[in-house]
């Protein structure tokens, strides 16, 4: 079980690295907004994995809060891009 969790951690870290590359190279602001949404989900998944590894309780509550409120940052970025265009 622990080996599986460590494998998941390595895979998620690689995924996070690839998303960071996309944030750095862009090229447009919308690309970065999309990649920031992805990196939020990646970091939450890493938290869940660490929570499973260290046997933290109530990781499901964290997932519930992030999935219901986490999209607000992307929404704000999208509004900003649309307002700049208008």
């Amino acid at each position, binding site marked *: 079980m622990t080996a599986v969790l460590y494998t998941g951690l390595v895979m998620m870290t690689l995924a996070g690295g690839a998303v960071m590359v996309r944030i750095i190279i862009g090229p447009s602001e*919308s*690309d970065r*907004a999309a990649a920031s949404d992805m990196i939020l989900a*990646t970091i939450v998944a890493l938290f869940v994995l660490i929570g499973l590894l260290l046997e933290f309780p109530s990781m499901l509550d964290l*997932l519930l809060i992030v*999935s219901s409120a986490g*999209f607000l940052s992307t*929404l704000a970025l999208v509004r900003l891009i649309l307002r700049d265009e208008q």
Partner: protein
Amino acid sequence: MTISFLTGFFVICGSFVFLIGSIGLLRSEDIYCRTSTIATATGLGLGCFTLALVFNDLTLVNCIKAIIAFSINMAVSSVVGMLVGRSAYASDAKMSTKTHKDELAEHHS
């Protein structure tokens, strides 16, 4: 033992979805493909991690929380994908050269 196996299975599934999604994010040619990749990867990936957490501690309260989290997550990831695509279209993001038809531009003209 079964519950532990299911947790591991969903952890590997979720990590794999995220890894494939991030590779797709790097390899996609335009923002519209990237939003599609992101909507799928975040919705399905976090859904898999929700299932892994439920099977780690299988109680009724956790099942209810997981159903709420799963449905909100699925709705939010697709809505965010559409919003980012819309903002990209409004800011005249370049389309891939493989795109043959732009029905939205034809509709507005």
